[in-house]
């Protein structure tokens, strides 16, 4: 309960900072638009994205804002229809990775001893397995797998980095005075972790969420790009696969290959921009910028 309250307070604070920070606001707006497209793709999709209905390989026009691909499908419609899968993979993977990272990393650091040994060992083992190669291997095994299978693969390979980072930071916080004081007061471990230990780490936790989401969108797109994901679904990486296999760039259809990449880049940038604001929420040291500026203005 106390944790929930701390969490909600954190969220409210976050919103305050997003509102004040132009970069974060830009990130939030982009994210909102992408979520809207994901929720209601048909509002944004003028054509059936899978219909081979038009002249292949035509350029910009009013009817086809981004032209058509070499199969005669509307590129813009495919882009919109692909938003849902790409955005959802990133957010869902980011969420589960963060839960795992926090649970394992912080528990290990706070508990110490055998628990730390076992958890750290587990983290290290997952960590030393080459992540993207492993993802490729498993994806090859599960070719044509469902959305959730891809999520599962990316989560089990994606949490360890964050867990290790969080453990390191938690370790260095563990012996700080205010934590020792709370322990000395006889507070429960839950209280100490949630109220004293986690809040100063929010920056890193959120950074980990954003990092994991970023990892997910890029890894998932990479899998789709090399044809290891289900190429019959609508996603940005899948578009890149088809563009690459039909050599959109040298064959004179650059929009087909560039547009999905730009969407991934925009989405990734939104995640990165938001990172800025969240850092400022949790880490008071990051805040003084505004003050400094004001001082300068006064001087």
């Amino acid at each position, binding site marked *: 309960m106390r944790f929930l309250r701390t969490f909600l307070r954190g969220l409210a604070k976050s919103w305050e900072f997003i509102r004040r920070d132009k970069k974060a606001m830009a990130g939030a707006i982009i994210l909102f638009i992408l979520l809207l497209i994901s929720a209601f793709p048909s509002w944004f999709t003028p054509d059936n994205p899978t219909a081979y209905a038009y002249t292949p390989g035509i350029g910009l026009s009013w009817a086809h804002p981004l032209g058509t691909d070499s*199969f005669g499908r509307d590129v813009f419609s495919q882009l919109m229809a692909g938003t849902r899968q790409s955005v959802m993979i990133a957010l869902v993977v980011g969420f589960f990775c963060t839960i795992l990272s926090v649970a394992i990393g912080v528990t290990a650091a706070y508990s110490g001893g055998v628990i730390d040994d076992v958890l750290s060992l587990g983290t290290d083992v997952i960590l030393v397995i080459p992540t993207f190669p492993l993802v490729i291997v498993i994806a090859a095994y599960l070719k044509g797998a469902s959305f959730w299978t891809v999520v599962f693969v990316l989560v089990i390979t994606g949490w360890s980095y964050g867990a290790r980072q969080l453990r390191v930071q938690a370790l260095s916080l563990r012996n700080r005075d205010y934590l020792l004081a709370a322990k000395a007061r006889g507070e429960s471990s839950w209280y100490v972790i949630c109220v004293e230990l986690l809040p100063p780490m929010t920056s890193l936790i959120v950074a980990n969420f954003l990092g994991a989401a970023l990892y997910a969108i890029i890894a998932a797109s990479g899998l789709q790009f090399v044809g290891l994901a289900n190429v019959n679904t609508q996603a940005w990486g899948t578009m890149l696969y088809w563009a690459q296999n039909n050599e959109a760039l040298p*064959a004179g259809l650059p929009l087909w290959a560039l547009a999905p990449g730009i969407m991934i880049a925009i989405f990734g940038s939104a995640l990165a921009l938001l990172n800025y604001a969240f850092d400022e929420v949790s880490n008071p040291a990051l805040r003084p910028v505004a003050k400094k500026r004001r001082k300068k203005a006064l001087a």
Partner: protein
Amino acid sequence: MKKYKVGLATSALVLVASTITVVGPSVVGLTVANAAPSQAPLNLANEQGALWSCAFNPFVPASLPYSFGLTYESLDFVNALQNGKVTPWLASAYAWSNSNKTLTFTIRSGVKWTDGVALSAADVVYTFDLLKKNPALDLNSVWSVLTSVTQSGSKVILNFKSAAVPYFFYVAGQVPIVPEHIWSKIANPVTSIISKPVGTGGYIMSSCSGENIQWKANPHYWQKADAQIKVVNMPSFLSNNTCNEYLAQGKSAWGSQFIPNIKSYYVAKKAGNTYWFPPVANVVLFPNLTVPGLNDAKVRQAISYAINRSTISKIGEYGYEPAGSQTGIVTPTFSSWVSSSATSAIGSSSGYDTTKAAAILTADGYKKGSDGIWAKGGKKLEFTLTTNGGYSDWIASMQVLSQQLTTFGIKITLQTPAANTFYANLYAGKYQLAYNAEAGGPTPFYEMRQWLFSKNSAPIGTAASSNWERYSNPTTDALLAQYGTTTSVATQKSIVAKLESVMVNQAPVIPVLEEVDWFQYNPTTINNFPTSTNPYAQPGLYNQPDWGYVLDKLAPKA
């Protein structure tokens, strides 16, 4: 990734003035050493998706593509583009006897291995014995039909278990002959690395790295007028895109690539850039005949009529691979084999007629449900269709085909598993509909036999070598056996005509498109490329031994 990178071979000739300037003296030195009027090396462009292993064993899949044809040669050359026309090669003559159960080759005299030792009949016998002792090397399973191979002077006598006319293609055309005096000293012919190959071919390997293989013309080649190109390079390409770019940039005069938008991407880039895609086999929809619904010939016929092959060709393959025919005959390559009665049975629609497809299903007792799907006795016509997830053009083709069938009322779910999963399931019969191609052969019979011969099949769960749909019909088997006993082309054609009727009436498999040889070339500085008017060999660089024999014939323009 496109399909043709997977299997066999290599190359593209490139005139590389630009390359030389970048690299500097090292490459130039090689060419200068060989020819006084410096002749640009020929660079080959065929993507294999791997670096070269530099193990020149013509019986091992990884190295066969760059060993057989150029270094090692066969007894005869059988040309699939000219109805199996035989050109004597290392054997100067052959003859069938003993009711076509014995085949006698006369080994050419005056042929020398590249180390100077003369080729003898003993080398040929040794080669066949090698395959017998090491079944892993017998890639065409010639010992499944042979009983003995013996020498008699300059003659080699092959005895078969039964009349084996069609096997001539495999024993004479597909077995690379290796030198006994070298190979008998190799400890393990399956796993040893042969880094300095000794063959009879027109080219001698001069250097090999993972990234490039270089050959120089064999100055003592037995075909004196041949092997005119002095230096041949074959860089390895790890992906289709990079190889296509190499071709488009004019660095290669001979390529074997699937190039999207070939007119703007390749033809328009350089004067002389030309392509020719001769059809050689079929890409086929295999219905699993043990699956309810698909075991009904009427349903299979309806599927054949309900698919618009020319649309699939246009969207999935840029029109490069022409629409196939339910007769199973690849045209124009094998036009003389087309049976008029089989084509007239298909009707004037040339195979696409949804009205007829609907009529066939209605007559068979099917009704279209409210969901638009045909059904009989509560059983809906809905199937999964699987194709090799490594071939993007096949996936695109099947996406179109799935849409067509689903619109017609046969619901298709497309699956695109990894290559090995796909093949394992196809071979074991664990699929409903599958899209795949086979190698074909020098006449339409070879594909027909692969599709229809019941002994090629196997029970569900066991890997079948072909006939994956599990078709079994004694009459058809008898027809196929009869073909093997005759060397008369007229009789062979009448047998194939009957097989075409089987294809049309029972639709055991459904040909969709015609598989072509991918072939781009630039004849500006090089003569004698194969063309539609002079198809003296298959021009795709992944055809063994054809590519080597084409290289022998190429000549620089004066």
